[in-house]
């Protein structure tokens, strides 16, 4: 007891930061990262918009303006639009619906698409990668070669093929995007598993009698969290883009769903005559994808121990 009390001042003399957990440390680095800040801010705003879409959007996304003329340009009272006219921040679309409201409601869909497809792909991919890496041998060969086959297809083409087979629709598009994202996660997780499965701490655990399942889930897989988190964030951006592309091609969301890609696809030929129909949904896609890419970059930097300053 006396020795320990004697050593306390020494311990206390060390800088407090040394005692932070790796997660806190990573979070601190993330919050300091410039692009991560921008990404987090944008994503935060998007999430708020999505949650409070009912309050933010002045009209319903299916609501047709009986007295409005279709393709009407934006009318913003603050910018000098005649106050007698109804205000439409982004103008009206090809069915006389308020474009601003549609873009706002579209944020819900896009976030949902990004999250759902990636969570699904991570769950399946991680399982495949973990089994392949941990079991090795025949399992590894079969599982990873089938992942290689999936990766050999251009992902969007494969998604188009899957949707064509299942029939167009948002759910099928989500499924297709999830399927084409699986191999990336499988590879990541397998690599993590391989790199640690023969390390001493794992062997120690095994020697103490831990079951393979316990070993896998409590000793090995936590090592894969970091790369999967980084990849998952970037993957959300890709998934949103893929979903927009599928909807643009008429294979994703169905009319009149306020899906940004679908909105672009429906009016793609009006780029010259009514550019507002394309600018706003296009901007929305761009900002969302940019936000997730920025955050993904920030996460990678923050979580990579080699980049630690």
């Amino acid at each position, binding site marked *: 007891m006396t020795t320990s009390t004697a050593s306390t001042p020494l311990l206390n003399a060390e800088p407090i930061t040394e005692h932070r957990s790796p997660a806190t440390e990573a979070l601190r680095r993330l919050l300091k990262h410039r692009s991560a800040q921008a990404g987090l801010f944008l994503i935060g705003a998007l999430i708020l918009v999505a949650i409070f879409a009912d309050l933010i959007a002045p009209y319903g996304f*299916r609501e047709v303006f*009986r007295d409005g*003329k*279709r*393709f009407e340009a934006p009318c913003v009272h603050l910018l000098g639009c005649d106050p007698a006219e109804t205000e439409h921040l982004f103008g009206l679309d090809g*069915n006389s619906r308020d474009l601003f409201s549609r873009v706002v409601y579209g944020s819900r869909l896009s976030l949902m698409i990004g999250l759902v497809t990636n969570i699904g792909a991570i769950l399946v991919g991680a399982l495949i990668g973990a089994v392949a890496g941990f079991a090795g041998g025949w399992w590894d060969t079969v599982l990873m070669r089938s992942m290689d086959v999936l990766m050999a297809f251009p992902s969007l083409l494969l998604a188009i093929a899957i949707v064509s087979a299942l029939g167009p629709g948002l759910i099928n598009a989500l499924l297709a995007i999830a399927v084409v994202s699986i191999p990336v996660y499988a590879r990541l997780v397998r690599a993590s598993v391989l790199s640690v499965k023969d390390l001493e701490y794992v062997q120690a655990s095994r020697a103490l009698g831990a079951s393979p399942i316990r070993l896998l889930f409590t000793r090995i897989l936590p090592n894969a969290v970091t790369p999967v988190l980084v990849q998952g964030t970037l993957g959300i951006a890709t998934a949103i883009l893929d979903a927009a592309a599928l909807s643009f091609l008429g294979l994703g969301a169905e*009319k009149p769903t306020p899906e940004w890609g679908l909105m672009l696809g429906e009016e793609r*030929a*009006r780029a010259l005559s009514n550019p507002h129909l394309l600018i706003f949904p296009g901007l929305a896609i761009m900002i969302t994808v940019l936000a997730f890419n920025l955050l993904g970059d920030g996460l990678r930097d923050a979580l990579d121990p080699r980049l630690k300053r």
Partner: protein
Amino acid sequence: MPSTMRLYKALSGLTAAALLVAACAPAATPTAAPEPTAAMAPTEAPAPTEAAAPTEAMAAYEGLKVEAESCDYGGEIQSIEAIDQYTVKFTLCYQDPDFLSKIAFTVFAIQDKEYLDATGGDSVAMSEQPNGTGPYMVSEWRRGEQVTFTAFPEYWGDAAKTQTAILRWNADSAAKFLALQSGEVDAVDNPAAQDIEAALTDPNMQVAGREGLNIFYVGFNNTIAPFDKVEVRQAIALALDRQRIVDQYYPDGSEVAQQFLPPSFSPGFSTTGDGATWYEQNIDEAKALLAAAGVAEGTEIELAYRNVARGYLPEAPPVAQEIQAQLAEIGLNVVIREIESTEFLDATAAGQVGFYLLGWGADYPAATNFYNYHFANTQNLQFGEGYTEIFDTITQAGQISDPAERQALYDQVAALIKRDVPMIPMAHGGSAVVYSAAVEGAHTSPLGNELFYVMSAGKDTFTFVQNGEPAALWCGDETDGESLRACNQVYDALMAYQLGGVAVEPGLAESYTANPEGTEWTFSLRQGVKFHNGADLDANDVVATFEAQWNAKSPNHVGREGNFEYWGAFFGAFLNAD
């Protein structure tokens, strides 16, 4: 009904022999076509020309004859007979005031008998190397891209003004218009309303307006729930704001439809009685009707359409969404389903689609063309189980030539349609073809019959963009305007529609005569007409072409789907159909 088809050999049967003697005797004077009788007033017929070569005695001509044993089989045609090499006679079971208009239609264009036999009447096989008598030959059909036509040097009429004509398609109105603006194409059919407005002020373009001889309707199949209930159909009719749809999605010159027929059809368009005007919008009544029919709030129904621009419906997707939004007000949850064009037409005609957007453009300007095809046609199941009252009244009206009597029946038809609501008449769409300013001979046809051979853009190709790809390049079994426009360039029928108009004028038949009752029509064919494959046109080609459609047992009765919907619509019934 049993019937026979007989091949008459010259001098083999008494009747035939007598006819042949009359026609083929080495006469000192040329055999002239008999004077047209007054009854049917063939005003357009030019003076009969020398029908048979006077100098050489004609070799015994084996004229074909197809004949129904009796008229009990239910159709309009009793017999078609090649009297001599250049004379064909049609005998009808009843008089038909629209007979000439009907046979001028592209679907009844004349094909070479040998070619027809060789291809077995299969439209797909015939589309590989189309063979007609028209001003253009098909040199290539690049599927999914374009059809290329080359001028036929031995065409019997005026030579084509441009050596190569190209037919392209694009379902996207705005993309088509961009192609015209960039000078990539010379003509664009059915641009969107805004683009027509833009073209009117563009010095590089000329707009040729087209009269709205068409109908856009929302159709129901009464064998598919919930559209089997008349209350549901009426409720939807009451819920729609048709004026708004015309205002928002149609170009100038369009109007809200009150009936299935365009207003200029007389006899036909009803000006008195219940059927003269359609229902006014009434949301409350619509809701009450739905409730009475036991259709709960939020019931899901599917609305199908095809995404092609038509004179009757320039932009289908936004109109479908508009209807979706309008029906949400009476508590119907509409799910929109877009179907590929050909598949959509086949599925509706087969009675597989319950609720859909479709329309009709005139093939010839008479009530029979609109009514009979849709409501008195056993081949067409698009409205489900036949509405027998409507069916019978329309059939009856089509066989009467007195305009007042016919009109009285058509008044009943309009009222019956309003009562039963097999469809909701939405709009008569004005449309246009926009040409580049350099095009000479620019025209439109109210029948959608624009002919490329009279047009020139001052260069060696002329490119026309329509809305969709043809389904086949032999149109005997086609109904879609996209296919018909392509066929119009390649084939000729016995009669023809005036360029840019609806009047009937001689085509492959140079002249014709009719008996006073209007049941016997004798056509004298043009001589020296060549098919693209080098064969000469003769009367047997005419008989064989008509037989392939009429006689269900003919080996050439194949077509693409084998429905021959136009035959059913125009001439009632098929021979040997059982």
